[in-house]
């Protein structure tokens, strides 16, 4: 006896209905969970096809265990770090952040390592600039992939501010960081620091007032902003006090310091010819790169012709 095909037809129609229901649901899930699906955000520079990790990592990636593979590579980074193999770390870190693009600490350490450590290790200015640009590019990719993380944006802003001295961009990034959920009060305070460095009073006052309106219940924050506002009201035109702050930056790293290049002919400090940063006069060694300024200041003798 031949079996009826009716149940199969009904089941096929039912499956079609379920498939049609599932299509918009899946689309909605993809839009709701960018951290899971939009790994290759436009402009992020991430290319999953170019993951440069060992084979087991790729297998793990294909199995849906990307984060665990990233953890294992992170342990490898730790070992390389302890072994002093600084120049071997960036490719491994690249694999880490490609496998888990939402590993904020991974992005932060990767960008910091390039912009600070490898930058400082380099002798040539071109190398130093290249490492710094690479570090900033890494952090920018991290921000593109984690736009809601204030920690990620803050790290990017801090590198622009502290290392690249790209102060207007840093101010924009600090502002963006302070707008994110769970942002800390220091993000709002850092928003006006770049304008202090630039002595851009047209922007400094509105930025300070804006920062004062943020975190109204945070008493330490309010006190710190009020202290800064008082200081600038009293010293906005006091160049001697500005110089004192510059000297402080080289010693205590106080953040209100005014950049030395605004006062190029100041008699109170020397500019190190090697690192380009100021050191108080009378000190023979650069406080930043520990170069021997006295020797570096010796006039260079013209080369003798070789016959």
């Amino acid at each position, binding site marked *: 006896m031949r079996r009826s095909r009716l149940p199969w037809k009904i089941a096929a129609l*039912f499956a079609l209905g379920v498939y049609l229901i599932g299509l918009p649901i899946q689309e909605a899930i993809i839009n709701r969970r960018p951290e899971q699906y939009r790994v290759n955000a436009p402009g992020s520079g991430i290319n999953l096809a170019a993951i440069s990790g060992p084979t087991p990592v790729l297998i793990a990636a294909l199995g849906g265990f990307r984060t665990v593979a990233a953890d294992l590579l992170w342990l490898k980074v730790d070992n390389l770090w302890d072994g002093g193999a600084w120049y071997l770390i960036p490719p491994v870190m690249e694999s880490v952040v490609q496998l888990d693009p939402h590993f904020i600490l991974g992005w932060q350490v990767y960008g910091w390592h390039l912009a600070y450590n490898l930058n400082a290790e380099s002798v040539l200015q071109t190398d130093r600039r290249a490492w710094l640009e690479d570090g900033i590019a890494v952090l920018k990719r991290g921000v593109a992939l984690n736009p809601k993380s204030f920690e990620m944006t803050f790290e990017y802003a801090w590198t622009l501010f502290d290392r690249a001295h790209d102060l207007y961009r840093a101010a924009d990034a600090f502002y963006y960081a302070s707008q994110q959920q769970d942002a800390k009060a220091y993000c709002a305070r850092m928003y006006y620091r770049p304008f202090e460095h630039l002595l851009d009073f047209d922007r400094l006052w509105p930025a300070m007032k804006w920062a004062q309106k943020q975190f109204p219940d945070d008493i330490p924050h309010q006190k710190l902003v009020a202290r800064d506002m008082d200081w600038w009201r009293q010293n906005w035109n006091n160049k001697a006090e500005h110089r004192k702050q510059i000297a402080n930056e080289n010693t205590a790293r106080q953040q209100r310091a005014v950049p030395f290049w605004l006062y190029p002919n100041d008699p109170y400090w020397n500019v190190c010819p090697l690192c380009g940063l100021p050191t108080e006069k009378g000190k023979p060694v650069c406080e930043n790169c520990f170069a021997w300024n006295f020797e570096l200041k010796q006039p260079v003798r013209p080369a003798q012709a070789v016959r």
Partner: protein
Amino acid sequence: MTPQIGKLILFVGAMLVAGILVMTRKAWMGALAHGWPSVWRIAKMTVAEARRKRVLQAVVVLVVLIIASLNIVSYLSPVEQARMVKDSGLMSITLFGMLLSIFVGAFMIPHEIESRTIYPILAKPVRRYEFLLGKYLGALIILGVIVAILTVVLVGVLLLQAHVIGVPQAGQPDSKFDAAIPAVIFAAVMSYCALAVLTALIMLISAVSSTTMTVIGAILLWGVGSMQSMLYDLSTKMVGASRFVLWLFYHAVPPLQDFDFRTNVANGIPIDAGAAVQALGAGLLYIIVALLFASLFFENRQV
């Protein structure tokens, strides 16, 4: 897909499903009303069989030991350590849950047929779909108990570590060990839901093929289902036949990645409850379709 087209497709699909459910209501309502006792008895029998399997017990003990030994990375900072423990623990639950799901699901029906223990069952007034649903329910209970045990162990490890190193260390005031217990439990529950979908698909494959083919098929399904984001990315970039193949894989295989919230838990990304509800709804529909076809295949199979 624009929102309007999405709503239209959703409406058409819902109308189709609702129409079929209304037209066949006598059949499925009667089956649900009368078949439940048989389904429950077979489920209990399946659980009792699984309890006797030493391999299952050994694997569970092994995974408990693995999760309990996650203290080995204690030289890292608290933030890194919290991430490692949560991520590795949830990975263990998912990975071994998947293996156990295959082990439990793939061997049930073929083993019953090969050992001929299915004959006395089917000789009784038990329909074949009741047998299949009972086996599926039993597998879900077994997996639920195992996932619950592993989650309790992981939560215990997290609480212990949070108690020991949860206090911010000197020089690292911002580096805290965030155990995030509710998020971890949520991720484990969602992993269990993914296993439920996978087990339904394993039942479908095992209804038509041998044990070996079922194991291979289940691993492939799990692999492809877990890399939906890659398929999605690649299918938008490829052209021609390869794009069509990727598109087919992307739409044919249930997106098990929708149930994966490990990235959120490990990185402290807020969990979107709406996306979880949508994933659960889609998963339930996949389970129903898989079991429907498994029943039809099993009904026509010569045993």
